[in-house]
C-alpha cells in the first residue's frame, strides 16, 4: 500500500530530479550568502567604531534633502536612519525619546489652536536648527485634450478655495481667469491632502488663515472642526477630498494616471522627482511664480527669524507673514524653512557618542550639503542662518566643535559682501507671467521642458529679432550675469526665452516652442517641428561645451553659467547651480562628492561631480525607486521562500499526496 515500496522505479527516478534541484537551490543560496558577505565587507569597519548609529524622524517635506545628506555622510561612516513620518510624529517621538533628533517644519506647538494636545518639551532640552528651505508646491495632474497641462497658474484665493471645496471644477470662471491661455476642462477638482500630522499642512493653513480667513473659516465650520479653527497640522477633510500619508503618498497619488484632476500640496522636490508640474502662484506683485530654489531664496529674505537667543522656545523660528505680502515679483508666498530639532541634553537613548555623530552630521548638513540642495529642489540656507546653526550645533552634548570657514562651504547663497547671492541672481519673472491677458507656455518643475500650448490671444507678441536681448535682460541680477564668452550666456534652466518662444509658433501654431536658446548661437533658435522642444536644457554635450568656454575665457569659474546642463532633466528644472561645483568634463553640476572633505581644503579646485545626489533624487522619490524595491523584494522572496520550499517538496521521499 505504501507508494514508495509499491514502485521500485520511484527511488531511482527521484534522486536525479532532486540533484538538479538541489544544485539550483545551493546555487541560489551561495549567491545570497556571497552578496551578504560583499555587503558586510564593504562597510568600513574602522570608521564605524567612531560613530554611533543615530535615528531621526519627522518632516517628509524636507525628507529629500535630509535623505541626500544621509546618503552622503555614509562615506564618513556616519549611519543615520531617517523616517519621514511627518513633522508631528517627529516632534512627538523626540519628546518620547525614541529618536535622537527630529525634523519638523514648524516649532513645538505649546499652544495649538486646532484642538490638539499641547506639546511640552522640557525647557533647555532642545534647539532648533534650520536645515533647508523650500516651497510648498501644488502639484497637479491635468490634461486638456489629452495633453498634459504644465503651465497652470492660480491666485492664492483660488488655491484656498480649491483646498476648501469652494471651487469644485477646473473650468470655474475664477480659475479660467487665472489662465487666459488655457481652455480649462469641465473636470472636477480632487484636492489631495495629507492624512497624518504634517508641517506642510500647518504652513498651508497658516497661510490661508492669514491671507484668506473667510474662506478658511467657512471650511472649518463645514468640516466640523469649529470652533478650533487655528492653524492645524491635521487637515480637516470633507467629501471629495483624498488624504494620503506623507509627501510621497500625496505625490504618488497625484501622479497616477487615474488621478486626472487631482491637485496636492507637496514640497517642490517631489514634483521634480515624479516629473510633474506645479502651480504658478500669484504673488503680491501680480506675478505668477514657481517655487524654484532662487524664488524661494528671494521670498525668504522677508521671513522674520526670531533672534532672541535667550528664549530657546522661539529662537530661530520663522514668522512668514512678511513672505505672504512680499511685493518682489519673484516672491513665492508659500516658501518656508524647515528645522532639525537637536537634543541639548543627554538622556534616554541619547548619549554623548551619539551627540558627536549628530554634530558631525549637522555640520555637514549646514556646510557642504547646502551646495547641492538647489539641484534637489530646495533652497540653500543664507549665511546668517548657517552661522546661527553652527552656534546651535555647539549645544549638542558630546559634539566635537568644528571651526568651519564658511567660505569653504561653497554655499551658492554666500557672497563676499554678506548678501544672498542666490536671491540677488534670481531671474525676474517673464512678462507673460504677469497677471493679465498673457500666459507663458513654459512648463514647470518636473516638466519644465514640456511647454503647454496657449491660446493665440494669450501669446506674447515680441519681435523675434530682439529675443537675444530679451533673454539677457530677463536676467538682471546685479553684476551676476556676465556674458563673458561672447553671447554664451545661456538662459536659466527652464526659463528659456519666453518671448522668443511666443513669437515663433511652429507650423500649425498649436505648440509654441519655448525656444531653446543654444549657447553657441547666442540667440533664439526655434526648434523645427517643435513637438518636444528642449527648453533651456540644451543637450548635455552642447552645454558641456558652454561650461568649458566660460571657464577657459575667464580663467576662473564665473557665475555666468546658470542652468548648466545636467544629465537628468529633472535636476535642471529651475535649479540655478553654483558653477563652481560644475565639472568641466562631464557637465555635471552640484552635489557633494566623495572627496568633499579633502576638497574643502583646496578652494581653487573645482568640486567634482555629484552622481550621489543624482542617484538619490531619482531613486529616492520617484516611482522608479518603488518599482525597483518591489522587484527586489519579490526576487528576494523567490530566493528565500520558493526555492527552499520546492527543494523541500522534492527532497521529501515520502511525500503525502
Amino acid at each position, binding site marked *: 500500500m505504501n507508494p514508495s515500496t509499491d514502485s521500485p522505479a520511484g527511488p531511482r527516478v527521484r534522486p536525479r530530479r532532486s540533484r538538479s534541484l538541489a544544485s539550483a537551490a545551493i546555487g541560489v543560496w551561495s549567491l545570497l550568502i556571497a552578496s551578504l558577505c560583499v555587503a558586510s565587507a564593504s562597510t568600513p569597519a574602522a570608521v564605524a567604531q567612531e560613530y554611533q548609529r543615530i535615528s531621526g524622524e519627522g518632516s517628509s517635506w524636507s525628507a529629500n534633502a535630509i535623505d541626500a545628506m544621509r546618503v552622503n555622510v555614509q562615506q564618513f561612516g556616519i549611519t543615520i536612519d531617517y523616517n519621514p513620518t511627518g513633522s508631528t510624529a517627529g516632534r512627538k*517621538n523626540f519628546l518620547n525619546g525614541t529618536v535622537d533628533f527630529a525634523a519638523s517644519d514648524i516649532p513645538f506647538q505649546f499652544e495649538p489652536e486646532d484642538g490638539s*494636545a499641547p506639546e511640552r518639551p522640557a525647557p533647555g532640552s532642545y534647539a532648533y536648527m534650520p536645515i533647508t528651505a523650500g516651497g510648498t508646491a501644488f502639484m497637479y495632474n491635468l490634461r486638456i485634450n489629452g495633453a498634459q497641462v504644465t503651465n497652470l497658474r492660480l491666485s492664492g484665493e483660488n488655491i484656498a478655495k480649491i483646498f476648501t471645496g469652494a471651487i469644485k471644477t477646473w473650468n470655474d470662471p475664477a480659475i479660467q481667469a487665472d489662465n487666459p491661455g488655457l481652455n480649462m476642462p469641465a473636470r472636477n477638482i480632487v484636492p489631495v491632502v495629507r*492624512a*497624518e500630522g504634517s508641517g506642510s499642512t500647518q504652513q498651508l493653513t497658516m497661510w490661508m488663515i492669514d491671507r484668506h480667513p473667510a474662506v478658511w473659516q467657512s471650511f472649518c465650520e463645514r468640516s466640523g472642526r469649529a470652533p478650533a479653527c487655528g492653524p492645524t497640522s491635521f487637515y480637516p477633510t470633507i*467629501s471629495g477630498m483624498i488624504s494620503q500619508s506623507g509627501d510621497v503618498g500625496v505625490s*504618488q497619488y497625484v501622479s*497616477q494616471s*487615474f488621478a*486626472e484632476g487631482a491637485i496636492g500640496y507637496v514640497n517642490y522636490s517631489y514634483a521634480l522627482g515624479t516629473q510633474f508640474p506645479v502651480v504658478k502662484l500669484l504673488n503680491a506683485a501680480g506675478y505668477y511664480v514657481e517655487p524654484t530654489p532662487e524664488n524661494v531664496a528671494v521670498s525668504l529674505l522677508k521671513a522674520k527669524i526670531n533672534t532672541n537667543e535667550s528664549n530657546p522656545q522661539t529662537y530661530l523660528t520663522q514668522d512668514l507673514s512678511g513672505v505672504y505680502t512680499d511685493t518682489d515679483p519673484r516672491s513665492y508666498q508659500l516658501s518656508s524653512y524647515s528645522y532639525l530639532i537637536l537634543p541639548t541634553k543627554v538622556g534616554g537613548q541619547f548619549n554623548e557618542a551619539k551627540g558627536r555623530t549628530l554634530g558631525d552630521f549637522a555640520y555637514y548638513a549646514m556646510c557642504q550639503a547646502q551646495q547641492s540642495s538647489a539641484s534637489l529642489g530646495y533652497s540653500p540656507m543664507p549665511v546668517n542662518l548657517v552661522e546661527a546653526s553652527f552656534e546651535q550645533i555647539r549645544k549638542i552634548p558630546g559634539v566635537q566643535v568644528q571651526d568651519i570657514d564658511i567660505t569653504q562651504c561653497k554655499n551658492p547663497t554666500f557672497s563676499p559682501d554678506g548678501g544672498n547671492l542666490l536671491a540677488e541672481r534670481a531671474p525676474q519673472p517673464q512678462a507673460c507671467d504677469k497677471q493679465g491677458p498673457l500666459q507663458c507656455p513654459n512648463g514647470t518643475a518636473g516638466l519644465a521642458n514640456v511647454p503647454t500650448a496657449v491660446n493665440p490671444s494669450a501669446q506674447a507678441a515680441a519681435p523675434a529679432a530682439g529675443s537675444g536681448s530679451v533673454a539677457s535682460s530677463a536676467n538682471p541680477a546685479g553684476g551676476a550675469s556676465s556674458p563673458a564668452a561672447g553671447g554664451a550666456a545661456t538662459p536659466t534652466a527652464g526659463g528659456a526665452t519666453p518671448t522668443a518662444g511666443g513669437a515663433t509658433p511652429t507650423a500649425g501654431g498649436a505648440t509654441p516652442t519655448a525656444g531653446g536658446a543654444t549657447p553657441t548661437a547666442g540667440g533664439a533658435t526655434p526648434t523645427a517641428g517643435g513637438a518636444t522642444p528642449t527648453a533651456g536644457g540644451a543637450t548635455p554635450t552642447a552645454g558641456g561645451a558652454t561650461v568649458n568656454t566660460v571657464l577657459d575665457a575667464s580663467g576662473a569659474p564665473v557665475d555666468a553659467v546658470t542652468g548648466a546642463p545636467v544629465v537628468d532633466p529633472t535636476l535642471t528644472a529651475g535649479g540655478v547651480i553654483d558653477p563652481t561645483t560644475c565639472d568641466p568634463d562631464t557637465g555635471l553640476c552640484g552635489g557633494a562628492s566623495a572627496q568633499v572633505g579633502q576638497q574643502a581644503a583646496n578652494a581653487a579646485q573645482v568640486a567634482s561631480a555629484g552622481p550621489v545626489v543624482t542617484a538619490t533624487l531619482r531613486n529616492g522619490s520617484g516611482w522608479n525607486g518603488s518599482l525597483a524595491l518591489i522587484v527586489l523584494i519579490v526576487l528576494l522572496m523567490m530566493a528565500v521562500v520558493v526555492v527552499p520550499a520546492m527543494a523541500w517538496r522534492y527532497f521529501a521521499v515520502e511525500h503525502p499526496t
Partner: protein
Amino acid sequence: MTAELRTVLPPQERVGEPEPRPFAGRQGRSDKVFTRVTFLSGVAVLAIMGAVGFFLTLESTDALGRVGFSFLTTSVWEPDRGEFGIKAVLTFTVLIALVAVAIAFPISMATALFIVEIAPRRVKSWLVSLVDLMAAVPSVVYGLWGAFLMQGQVIGLSRWINTWFGWIPLFSVDGADPGNPLSNATVYTASTFVAGVVVAMMVMPIQCVVMREVFSQVPPGEREGAFALGATRWGMIRVVTLPFGRGGIIGGTMLGLGRALGETIAVYMIISSRFDISFHVLESGSNSVSALIALRYAEASDFGLSALFSAGLSLFLITLVVNFTASWFVARSRSGADSEA
C-alpha cells in the same frame, strides 16, 4: 444509538466514564523536562494573550472612562477634543473585511477543491507551494502592489459595477458620473472596495489552507462509495466533500475574516481615511481600526494614545470572538462529527 443496537458489550465495561489508563512506566528525567516545557509553553501562550488583553484594557481605561458608552456611538476621532468613537471606523473595518471575504471565499474554496479533488498529483504540490507562498508575501508588498499597480486596474471594475448596479445602494457612488467623459476616476480610488480586493488576496491563502486540510480528510470510504453508486465527480463533491468539510469551510472563512479585520499596512497605504459612515463600498474614502492606529499612534498625545488603545481593545475582542468561533468550527469538522463514518 445505532452503535448500541449493533454491538452487545458486557455491561461492566460501559459503566462510568472512560478513564485514561494510568501511565505505568517510571518517568525519566527527559520525560519530566519535556512535560514541564510543553506545559510552560502552553501556559505562556495563555498568559501572553491574557497580558495583551489586560494591558489593552489598562491603557484604555483613561479614554473609555472619559467617554463611556458613547465610544461606540461616536463617528469622529478627535480625542484631544474629547470627542471620539469607533462607530465609523469599526463599520468601515467590517465592510473591508466583508468585501475581502466575499471575494476570497469563492476563490479559496475553488482552489482548495481543485487541489484536493481534481488536480493531477504533480500540479497539486506546485499549487500547494504557490498558495503557501501567497501567505508568505509580506503585507507591505501587497500594499505597494495594491496602491500603485492594482488600484488603477480595479477602477475599471468599480466603474462597471457602479454603472450597472449603481441602483443598489451598496454600489452607488457619490459624485460618479459615468456618462461624462470628463468625470474623475478618482471617486473610485482609495475605497473600501479597493482595500477589500487587496486584503482578499491576503486572506485567500489562509482560507484555502484550512479548507484544503479539511477536504483532504474526507473518508476515502465515503468517497469511493459515492463513486460506486454512480456519482459524477461534482456529485461526489456535492454530497460527500462539501458536507464533510462544512465546518472547515465556515471555520476557514472566519479565520480569514479575523485576519482581514486586523490587516493594517496594506489598508493604510490604500485608503483615504474618512470618519463619516458610508456604505457605498466603491466610493472613495474608507477606514479601519488598525489603519487608524498605524496612522495616529506616532503623533498621538497621551490621551490620544489611550483612545487608540481602546480602539485596539475593541478590535482585539472582535477578532478574539471571530477566531474562537472559527477554531470551534474547524475543530468540530476535524473530529468528523459531521460525518456518518
